[in-house]
Each structure stands twice: as structure tokens, then as C-alpha cells.
């Protein structure tokens, strides 16, 4: 188990935006089947790391491997087809299209005909959006948009799910429910990498935690190890973070 191929690995990953070093020599391994949380102060480079993994930015240096195969310069859609799926920090839905249409577009690569209709129905129920099915997605509440996007990301049946602040703007109840959904997916074999600020949520789901600071890996361990680490507390306190 210890020597199994990581589902995702970065080697010496770097990204500069002009003079700004946003990703700094990141060597990162994600084991298949784990729930891993990525935390760090605002501007630490968490979202940028996601965008590098997805091919939205190209790395200035370093390599990215998915299931042992190099994907560093592969276009985004090809990475998705390998089994990566994402929910962005800013809700990434089709605002001008209806809710069920959003789901249809997410599902139509995998399903068609009656199976497609049935899966849309099932997801609408699961996401608690049945009454909003005919609404434009842009008219949903913030929390509902988050749910819709999670639903679209999940509907691809990914091997690896990337979630950038999945619970931002949710009530504590919704947050907890999201955690349960993530754990249920994980039980089905989906590997999860989530960026989160909500430490209660991180405690609920994370098996391992990585702390990013100024673009570099600052600490790594279980949630208890991270919470007990004074250096980690210091970088958050330095930012006035609670």
C-alpha cells in the first residue's frame, strides 16, 4: 500500500505570475481513496494549484502526474476524461440555462435517452433542487448554486474530485450535509482533494491535511497534528485569521 502509485502527484511544481511566486516547489502526493484537505491563508496559492492541476494554467516548471502518467501539458478536457472533476471556488454553472439543462449537459457524455432523464431526476432529488428544475441556474441562491455545481462535478463519475471551498456560503447544516455527501462518495472509491477554510468541516472529512503558505507546502499531517502545530497557528494568526 505504501508504494502504490499515487492517483495524483506533482514534482517540483512552480508557477510565477510575473514576479509573484504563487506556487513554490510543490511536491505533493495524493493516495487513491483518501480525502485530503488543502488549507492555508488567503492568497496562499490554493486555487492556483488547482488550476495548474486542471490545465487552466501551465506550470512555469515541474511535472504533474495522474495515475502515474504525465499530464503536465495535456489540455483540460483530456484530464477530465481521465477521471478528474472539479468544483470551482466561484460557482461555475451555466447561469442562462435551466437547472435541469445544466445537469443534462454534465451527464450527456455518459448517458442518453431514458437513462439520462432518469439520472437527471435522481440528481434533482438528491440535490434538493426538484422545485427549481425549470429555473435559470443564475436565479438560484448561492448555496443552491454550490450544490448544483457539486452535482455536475459528481455526475461525471470522477476518480478524483477537486473541490475549491465547497461549503462557502452554506449554513452549518448544509455544510454538514455536504461533508456527508463527500464521505459517501469517498466510500464508493472517489478520491477527494478539497480546499477549505472551515476547520470543523476539515475535521469532519479530512484524513490528511496539507498546509500551503506563500505557495509552498508548509506542513502536512492529520488534522490533530496540524492543529497542534504552533507554526501553523502562527501563519493564520499573522493574517488575523480565526
Amino acid at each position, binding site marked *: 500500500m505504501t508504494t502504490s502509485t499515487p492517483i495524483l502527484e506533482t514534482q517540483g511544481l512552480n508557477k510565477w505570475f510575473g514576479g509573484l511566486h504563487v506556487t513554490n516547489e510543490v511536491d505533493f502526493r495524493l493516495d487513491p481513496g483518501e480525502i485530503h484537505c488543502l488549507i492555508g491563508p488567503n492568497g496562499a496559492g490554493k486555487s492556483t494549484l488547482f488550476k495548474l492541476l*486542471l490545465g487552466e494554467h501551465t506550470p512555469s516548471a515541474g511535472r504533474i502526474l495522474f495515475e502515474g502518467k504525465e499530464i503536465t501539458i495535456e489540455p483540460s478536457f483530456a484530464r*477530465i476524461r481521465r477521471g478528474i472533476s472539479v468544483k470551482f471556488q466561484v460557482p461555475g454553472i451555466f*447561469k*442562462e440555462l435551466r437547472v435541469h439543462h445544466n445537469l443534462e449537459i454534465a451527464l450527456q457524455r455518459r448517458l442518453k*435517452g431514458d437513462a439520462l432523464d432518469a439520472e437527471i431526476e435522481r440528481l434533482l432529488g438528491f440535490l434538493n433542487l426538484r422545485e427549481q428544475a425549470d429555473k435559470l441556474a443564475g436565479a438560484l441562491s448561492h448555496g443552491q448554486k454550490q450544490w448544483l455545481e457539486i452535482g455536475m462535478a459528481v455526475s461525471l463519475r470522477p476518480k478524483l474530485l477537486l473541490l475549491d471551498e465547497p461549503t462557502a456560503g452554506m449554513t452549518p447544516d448544509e455544510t454538514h450535509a455536504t461533508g456527508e455527501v463527500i464521505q459517501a462518495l469517498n466510500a464508493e472509491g472517489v478520491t477527494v482533494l478539497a480546499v477549505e477554510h472551515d476547520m470543523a468541516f476539515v475535521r469532519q472529512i479530512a484524513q490528511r491535511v496539507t498546509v500551503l503558505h506563500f505557495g509552498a507546502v508548509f506542513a502536512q499531517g492529520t488534522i490533530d497534528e496540524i492543529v497542534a502545530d504552533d507554526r501553523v497557528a502562527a501563519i493564520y494568526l499573522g493574517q488575523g485569521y480565526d
Partner: protein
Amino acid sequence: MANSPHKMLFHKRLEGPQTLGKGKGFWSGFLLVLAAACVYPLFADGYDVGNNVYFFNWVFMALGLCLIWGYGGILSFGQVAFFGIAGYCYGILTINWGAAYGLSLVALGLAVVVAGLVAALLGYFLFYGRINGVFLGIVTLSFTLVCERFMAQTAGPQWTVGTARLNGFNGMGGMPPLTIPWFGNDIILFPDVQLYYLILALLVAVYLGLRVLLNSRFGNVLVALRDNPERAEMLGYDIRRYQLTAFVIASMLAGLSGALYTAWGQYITPSSMGMTAAALPIIWVAVGGRGDITTTLVGTLLVLAGFQALTVYGSQYALVLMGALLVITVLAAPQGLVMGVVNLTTRLWRRFTKEARS
């Protein structure tokens, strides 16, 4: 489920989320309009029928622009380039081949294919070079102006292709009209009733074909990438391939317009690819309502008819009024005037039925 699944699917795609109009009411109206269009030549004189063919010629290009701009969110300023390319192609081929044995129809098909190939080449660099937004507009406009300049300097006798003289700014003329071989007694589709029916049939086929395409999985992806290209790509769609495909289809439709126009008037000039020509399709589509092919179709015909009526008072005035019409549309009904009327009537109708119920 007595119908075969295939039939169901096709029927389902004639109406759907991407096209206005569904149910018995809409299709009855459609058949009524179509029937009227079919019997119209029986009651009109030849000149008017020929005039209507002229209007119909342009609609293909407008529908193509609606596809990429309205549905795909890509504003191409250069659709007239493909109009011109196909027009010249038709001229060169038919002047060399003549129109016997159905060769004019082959030339029509080839002209459309050539327009598609040029669009594929240009589109490849545009979309795979990730050029979009206003830059795409600039590049496509430059492309059409370059085509215009190029053709305008072909006045000299050295500019011939086979027996066809390109003729520079004066334009190329004298190509044969479309001709259907018919047991040694060819039907010449001169601006007249037969050509009218041919083009009407093409128009219906293209309109229905586009409806099916737009409500298919392809159409879903097209509107998805207009809305949020990043999300579309992150669902596993190679969005550049979809953009390129839509661009090629749109350009082939522009080519169809150009070749038909050339066959209709037996004449094509470089100014068909010029600045004014480039602006007009954008006005038709914007005024009708680029978000839907039916509003585009209706809007294009209305604007063309209006334009024609105005040119009686001089084409400069007509052009200025076209510009004014575009400004009014952008300010008052950004979704398009025909679309605005459609939206308003549906809203009034809903309110009316609601009141009637309570």
C-alpha cells in the same frame, strides 16, 4: 411507445430548449406560412418572385451567423468572406464547365465545400490559438477586407482561371444560372418560379436541420460554452472543436448564400466582401434576435424587405437607417426586436390566461 426510439428522438429535437416554438400551434403556423410561400408565385408576377428569391438568398448566411454568434457566443465579422469565396468559386467553375449535365449544381456544392475548407483553416488558427472575444471579430473582419482588396486588384488580363476573368473591382459576370438536367430538356433556374421553389426547399431543409442540430447534444454544448466556456471544458468537452465545427457550418451557410446569389444575379463583385456588406448580416441577426433561429429568420426577411423599400429613396439613406435600427435595437431590445415582441406577447398571454382563470 409505439414510435421507434429513433423517430421519437428526431421529433423531440425539432423542438427543444434551444429553439422557440413547440406544439401543435407552432407547427400549424409553420405549415400555414409554408403553404402561403408555396402558392405565392401563382398569384404574383415574375419580378416580385425573383425579388423574393433575392431575399431568401441571404437568409442562409444570417442563420449561420445566428448559429455561431447567437448560440456559440462568437461574433464573426467575416461571414461575407465565405459568401464571396463561394460566389467566385461558383463563377469560376461554371464559366469553365458550363451548366450542362447538372455541372452547375456540382459547382454549387463545391463552392460551399471550398468555403467550408477555408473556414476550417482560418478557424483552426483562431480557435486553437485561443483567440476570442473582440480579437476574433477583428481578425475575421480583417480577413474579409483582405479578400475584398485581393479581388479588387484582379482587373488585369493575367487574372484568369481557365476561361474565367476575375475582372477586379468591376466584378465577375456571365456565369450560367443553376440548371437541372431533365431528359435532354434542361430546366434553367433563371430568377423565376423554379429557382424560387428550389431555394424555398433549401431554406426549409436548412431551418429544420438547424433546429435538430441545436436541440441535439451538439447544441447543448454550444450554448453551454457561450455561457461558461471554462465549465464546459471542465465537463470534458473539447470546446475548441465545437467552436470550429459551428464556425465551419456557419461559413458553409454563408457560402451557400454567396453561390446562390451569384447564380441568381449571374454576377459577383469584391464589394460583396467589403465593410458595408460585412456589417449588414450583423444588423439582420441582431435586429431579429440572435438568440433564436426563428427570430433571426423572421428578422432578416423583415429588415431586408424594409431595406429594399427604403433604397427607393436612395441607398445612402437606407444604410444610415440600418445603422440607426441597430442602435435602437441595442438600446431598446438588446435581445432583438422580433425576440422582444415574442417575449412581450408571451408575457401578456400568460397574464391574460392567469386573469381568465382567477
